[in-house]
């Protein structure tokens, strides 16, 4: 049993729903109790989909358990086929149905439906959403993909986009255009936009482009084995990664690398002098493995940030994330425990969080700006405007998104110089954001609030030192307070005055 407050990933059948909802002409019959239908609203509300997900839930109730839930599944399966006439069915169980062991796959296979029926085994008590999506897509590909003649021109499949994915809609467009510049066409985009008939002709492409390893790696590996189709390993998020991706593609096509950078603004924006203030900003990066690693690379190489922490919530990517964190020489955190992430952020006291919607809330509470780089998604992660993460435009979007939450250039200096201005104090946040977080405003208005926080060590702050501490920018103040207390504790001091504060500062400065 594990005590959980918030979760980064849903159960594996939600991953299967993301695959089914992204596709067309496929239907998912899910053996599940009433209530599991809540998952529909993820798609209709968060992603604003204009159609119900193609999912039939059996919605059994307690009174059905004694009688015949298997029959209920059979009826649901039959009705769903008759009503929706899909080209293929996927069938499976949610966590509760897994316990009653009706074997939906076995039942559906004996029904003699005139379309392929793909059984899913998704262990709800061991695995999570990303695994569910990856496994579902793999099973669909394994069942439906056939060896077919290659297209005469070089084409690829774009693998991995699903419903409810972080900017998948726009990444597809961006990467398709990027490949077109290289003379590479797109055979099929899957799961999103593909029908079962499209899946059958995946083998016509010359190789696969894996956009999101989280949801497409197993299928790509299977096609590599069965159809001798290589797949790309670089995910083109960021300028460097996009260049690397182009190189990887041309190694596979034998063509010449070319990348139209006329619309790429990130490198110059990052070089321009006003970006000096970004130098060495301490950032904490957390998300799914793929997006977190991409963000860490951009943060260090393209923005000039200092990555102080890197982590992911999907254990499937743990190894790669650990090794990258070693290279960056920063803390690593592999966990799906939201409270652990919060503790980690609190202790590292970064100046910017690059995280998920969950970290955005942590940031709000701790008064640390945050930009969102990864799922789990929120309605805000489906902007009306074109807003990819990948390729050239993706890099531009990322620059804007990450800089937006920060206090900019000279404003930051002014805040540091005139910290005691009652309207223009650093805790008011960047002036281009109208809303001031409540926690910041409070501490802005009441100078005493900071000292009310219980300190772990029994050391008294002299009022003058306390006042001086408040002149330190809020985002490092917590760290300064802790360091000073540790410094004083180690020296057996029971009081902290201004000198202690600056001695500690000198001690910890390197």
């Amino acid at each position, binding site marked *: *049993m594990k005590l959980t407050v918030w979760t980064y990933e849903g159960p594996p059948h939600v991953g299967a729903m993301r695959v089914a909802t992204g596709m067309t002409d496929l239907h998912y019959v899910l053996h599940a109790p009433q209530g599991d239908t809540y998952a529909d609203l993820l798609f209709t509300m968060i992603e604003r989909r204009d159609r119900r997900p193609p999912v039939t839930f059996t919605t059994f109730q307690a009174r059905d358990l004694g009688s015949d839930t298997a029959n209920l599944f059979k009826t649901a399966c039959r009705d769903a086929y008759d009503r929706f006439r899909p080209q293929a069915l996927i069938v499976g169980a949610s966590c509760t149905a897994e316990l009653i062991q009706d074997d939906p796959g076995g039942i559906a296979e004996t029904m003699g439906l005139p379309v392929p029926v793909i059984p899913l085994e998704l262990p709800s008590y061991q695995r999570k959403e990303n695994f569910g999506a990856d496994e579902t897509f793999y099973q669909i590909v394994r069942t439906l993909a056939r060896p077919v003649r290659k297209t005469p021109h070089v084409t690829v499949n774009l693998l991995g986009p699903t419903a409810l994915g972080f900017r998948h809609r726009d990444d597809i467009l961006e990467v398709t255009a990027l490949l077109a510049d290289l003379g590479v066409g797109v055979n099929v985009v899957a799961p999103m936009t593909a029908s079962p008939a499209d899946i059958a002709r995946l083998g016509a492409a010359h190789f696969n482009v894996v956009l999101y390893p989280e949801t497409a790696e197993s299928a790509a590996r299977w096609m590599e084995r069965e159809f001798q189709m290589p797949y790309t390993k670089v995910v083109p998020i960021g300028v460097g990664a996009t260049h690397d991706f182009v190189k990887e593609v041309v190694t596979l096509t034998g063509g010449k690398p070319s990348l139209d950078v006329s619309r790429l603004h990130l490198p110059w924006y990052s070089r321009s002098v006003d970006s000096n203030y970004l130098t060495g900003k301490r950032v904490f990066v957390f998300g799914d493995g793929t997006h977190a690693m991409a963000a860490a690379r951009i943060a260090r190489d393209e923005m000039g940030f200092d990555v102080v922490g890197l982590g992911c919530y999907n254990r499937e990517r743990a190894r790669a994330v650990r090794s990258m964190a070693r290279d960056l020489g920063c803390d690593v955190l592999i966990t799906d425990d939201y409270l652990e992430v919060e503790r980690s952020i609190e202790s590292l006291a970064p100046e910017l969080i690059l995280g998920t919607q969950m970290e955005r809330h942590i940031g709000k509470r701790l008064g640390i700006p945050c930009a969102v780089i990864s799922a789990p998604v929120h309605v805000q992660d489906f902007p009306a405007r074109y807003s990819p993460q990948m390729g050239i435009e993706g890099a531009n979007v990322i620059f804007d998104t990450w800089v937006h939450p920060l206090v900019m250039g000279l404003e930051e200096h002014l805040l540091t110089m005139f910290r005691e201005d009652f309207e223009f104090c650093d805790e008011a946040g960047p002036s281009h954001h109208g809303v001031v977080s409540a926690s910041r405003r409070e501490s802005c208005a009441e100078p005493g609030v900071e000292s009310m926080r219980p300190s772990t060590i029994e050391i008294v702050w002299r009022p003058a030192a306390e006042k001086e501490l408040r002149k330190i920018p809020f985002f490092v103040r917590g760290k300064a307070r802790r360091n000073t207390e540790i410094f004083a504790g180690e020296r057996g001091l029971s009081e902290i005055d201004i000198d202690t504060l600056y001695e500690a500062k000198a001690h910890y400065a390197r």
Partner: protein
Amino acid sequence: MTAVACEPRPHGCRDVPVLKERGQHEVFCGLTGIIWLHRKMQDAFFLVVGSRTCAHLLQSAAGVMIFAEPRFATAILEETDLAGLADAQTELDRVVGELLERRPDIRQLFLVGSCPSEVIKLDLQRAAERLSDLYAPNVRILNFSGSGIETTFTQGEDACLASMVSVLPETRTRNLLLVGALPDVVEEQAVSLLSALGIGPIRVLPASRTTFESGVGENTLFALTQPFLGDTHAALERRKARHIPAPFPFGEEGTTAWLRAIADAFDIDDETFERVTRAPRTRACKAVAQAAEVLRNKSIFFFPDSQLEIPLARFVTRECGMRVAEVGTPFLHKGVVGPDMALIEGCPVFSEGQDVDRQLDRCRAARPDLVVCGLGLANPLEAEGFTTKWAIELVFTPIHFYEQAGDLAGLFSRPLRRFQSLNLMAAE
């Protein structure tokens, strides 16, 4: 304005046949009630014993994620719990210990059953009793089921309140108990109206803190403020409390009828009743009339969601002049909503339970001007050209009593006004 008769009228809909459906239910499970209950009861914590799906539902159901430190969590069952490798009761003791150590301010803990915990027959009652012995008197530990195999959406609140009834102290004092979790502002209005009528002492269930709880006994009269409290109703009657049946306090008419029923039970004279209610009634009528302008003669279709559907159908037909095509409800308890059914005009189709695809077919055939439905259906129906109102907003918005009557009508009229005010054809 004359006093409202809440006796069943000869042409009411109380005895019309009900269409019973048993297909795919597009509804939340009872765990969803935790979203508002954990805010209402400030010293309570809700521990769901369930799966990752339960945890995911709780953070998704509210449409937005609520990120104040929540007073709920999920003890996620893992492979070891199911394979019998770990004793679930021991595991539960450990998790509860962890939790109470983290939250020493908690005075009552609810162990909430889920689909998986019901299916593996994890005995939460036994756990609650054992843990109560361990943590009494500091923490009271109760259990109820919010599982989807047993409860639909608001039935979770019903199960929760019913579990609390059994531990309320016995009293012989004559008192009035208002039952149902209401937004604070609404609850205060109700109490102040009833107090002005000279009724008291008044207690509410659930109370914001355990220390404010009341006793219950044969001299207790209770009024339901929500129509989905059938089990709580039964539990209170087992404690010898007496129910005051009435239409539910939505709109001017509903509120007046509800207050009137209570006033009668407490022998309040007509003159006092008129004096106390006249001003707010007039305000309510005026506010409803303004909002209802666009609703008049429009048709409405209710998908089953919260069990508020029948009282709301009464409100929109009688006070807003709408026609109801179908009123679906997950569960129809005539003892509770009978007085509302008796007042509904024009006898629509009443359906209980759901077969969502068939109901969508009926809805498309009826072509209502407004569809009240869950979040999973709203955007798809909008895309088909329907105008919809999210049913969940009716649960998450203060809509009871006089001062909210206009807001309630406004919830229905806003989608229609929006539809009229947008001119997107040129943009499309």
